[in-house]
């Protein structure tokens, strides 16, 4: 045990983490964004990125039909090209989990995870009983990944024990049945120091993944934020021997952005993290751009957006 979970042990551990210099983190991320990924590397990176997509729909207006269509796309992103890999997971609200699971299983997508956002997503402002029930419902409905939000109000006011305990509770509900992704909502944490602290807090409490954002708040998965989180998982592995995954979500809309994320992973956490079990990209529009770039690399020209399917 690195910490015993008490407020004081958390405060001590997180307070002793090295600071993040904002200017330095920004310039490192900007430098890595200049990597030029071409030809065979680009092809490889596009397929890897597709396999890492958590294909997401989190709208109040979601319908069962839309979720089913999304599942079909998740299994076979390009209906005209079976060589395109399936995505990593489908990410939906709690009440759509069963529909998604049934649809995926019915069309040969048994290996694709269904991720549910829980714990009063996106704000996290509800009682612990509600959060527990929210998560339990998702697992009962067949979710194999839980994307929980942390209580930012508690974190920012210094109530670290409360945040920790909630993650521990949700992790215990997940048990062996579901992977736990902890959403930090970095846009509300604001400073990179906070991002680093929240990352460690989530990892210490048992997160399998740390995730940047809900997608409802801007800024979301900016490159320096992801850099700081990747440094955290890299160093946490040295500390604990456990590899924790990272999921940027929100604002990654095109292939260039996705490839920049993969470069960040490659040169920060290292190539061990370049697989869907340790890196995911929460997105919706991104998948179509990846498919269009893939077509372009194959055909040598850009196709009209009519050649990729609507979400």
């Amino acid at each position, binding site marked *: 045990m690195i910490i015993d979970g008490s407020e004081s042990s958390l405060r001590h551990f997180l307070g002793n983490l*090295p600071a993040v*210099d904002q200017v330095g983190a920004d310039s490192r991320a900007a430098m890595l964004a200049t990597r030029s990924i*071409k*030809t065979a590397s680009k092809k*490889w990176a596009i397929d890897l990125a597709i396999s890492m997509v958590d294909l997401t729909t989190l709208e109040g207006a979601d319908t069962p039909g839309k979720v089913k269509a999304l599942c079909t796309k998740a299994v076979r992103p390009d209906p005209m090209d079976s060589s395109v890999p399936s995505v990593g997971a489908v990410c939906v609200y709690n009440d759509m989990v069963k529909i998604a699971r049934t649809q995926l299983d019915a069309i040969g997508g048994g290996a694709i995870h269904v991720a549910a956002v829980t714990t009063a997503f996106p704000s996290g402002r509800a009682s612990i009983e509600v959060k527990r029930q929210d998560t339990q419902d998702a697992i009962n409905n067949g979710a194999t990944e839980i994307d929980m939000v942390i209580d930012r109000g508690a974190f920012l006011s210094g109530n670290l024990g409360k945040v920790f305990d909630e993650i521990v509770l949700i992790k215990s509900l997940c048990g062996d049945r579901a992977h736990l992704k902890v959403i930090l909502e970095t846009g509300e944490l604001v400073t990179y120091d906070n991002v680093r602290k929240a990352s460690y807090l989530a990892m210490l409490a048992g997160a399998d993944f740390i995730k940047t954002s809900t997608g409802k708040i801007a800024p979301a998965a900016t490159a320096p934020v992801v850099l700081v989180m990747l*440094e955290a998982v890299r160093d946490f592995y040295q500390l604990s021997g456990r590899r924790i995954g990272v999921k940027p979500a929100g604002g990654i809309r095109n292939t260039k952005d996705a490839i920049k994320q993969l470069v960040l992973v490659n040169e920060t956490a290292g190539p061990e993290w370049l697989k869907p079990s340790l890196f995911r990209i929460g997105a919706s529009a991104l998948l179509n751009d990846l498919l269009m770039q893939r077509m372009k690399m194959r055909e040598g020209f850009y196709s009209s957006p009519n050649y990729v399917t609507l979400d």
Partner: protein
Amino acid sequence: MSNFEYALAPESTAILNIAPQYGLFIGGKFVDSKSQQFFSTINPATEKVISQISLATEADVDFAVASARTAYNKVWSKLSAAERGKYLFRIARILQERAREFAVLETLDNGKPIRESRDVDVPLSAAHFFYHAGWADKLSHAGFGSDPKPHGVVAQIIPWNFPLLMLAWKVAPALATGNTVVLKPAETTPMTALLFAEVCQQAGLPDGVVNIVTGDGSTGALLVNHPDVDKIAFTGSTSVGKAIARAVSGTKKSLTLELGGKAANIVFDDAPIDETVEGIVNGIFFNQGHVCCAGSRLLVQENVSDQILEKLKHRMSQIRVGDPMDKNTDLGAINSSEQLARINELANSGDAEGAERWSPACELPTTGFWYPPTIFTGVTQAHRIAREEIFGPVLSVLTFRTPQEAIEKANNTPYGLSAGVWSDKGSRILWASQRLRAGVIWANTFNKFDPASPFGGYKESGWGREGGRHGLAAYVKGGK
């Protein structure tokens, strides 16, 4: 492909239009040297000859200085300051427009990675012209009196580590203040200066305001000793700087020198570790360590030295060494075989004196001049590699226990160009900066340059400043 290997992403050299041989740029035209002697400039990454360059001898230097004098007397000194500024703005814009051409040529001739020439050298060069263009008609407000006067003809001698950028640092303030120029680029890197000559023509700069004479040390000596030169500005080694100072003493020539360095990069135990490691890498491996202000002496507080070194080694193993023209290359070629020999000699002295050498596993190309990123640990103040400027990708690591000890060690050098301080505590940064005897002190960053910021050294690192208001002072009579 199972790993994320970056496929080759080479910048094309097709944009370049290189002549098989070049004359001297005197009086607004390329002219043949009187001696008709040539030397080759080569691509240090391949050892292939790029072009034949004229060696300027005494008659050529006389001609160049005379052209500069004529241009000064007849044209440049009669022009209004606002008109001078217009030419500088024009040059700055042309540099931006032809940025890619300059970046590719710089990388070809110098060996530095295209990422650096593209993102640092060329944009900063343009920025220097823009900055000084703005000063041209505002000199009476710069604190040098109501009507500051130029020196007249300025001789400028620049090094091979940042060929275009050092040209910009020299030429822009000289022209802004109303001087005319005879510039000598370094023997191994004349190409971008010759392309800059084309830019002067393109900008319609009056003939003779900028003259460029290529050659070796002998050409530089002729220029320094020329009786009709009013001011000398030199960037290069301390030994040559001392020789110039001796040659100029007793004459009316004014002199600025920007010389060597052995900068201390001081890491306190409360430093932001990850960014510090980046800063250490940037401090010593930027431009293959061919940087006079390179952070070549790392002073780490004892209690974090293991952690810093472990992270530094991990980060160094990711440095991509190879073809400078590849957009993903981090560390390019060493500029010349002479420099490579110098690096080897000093690094070998580190081994002989008992320091512990470490380099990541990296494959170096078989042709060209290369040196892997290297650190020496267990270095003390008494080691040669802690005292002499290596001017290569070699870092000496020393430790300290108390802040006082860090300052004492940092200042225990004949140099004093730059220093770095890494700490999350503002008061400690200020405390250290006040005690460090160096012209530039970076806090939680390294190798950051801006035309508005004066740059220059204490002690044997130089005389005078370049950049900012202080840099202008060197180009006006009696300027301080």
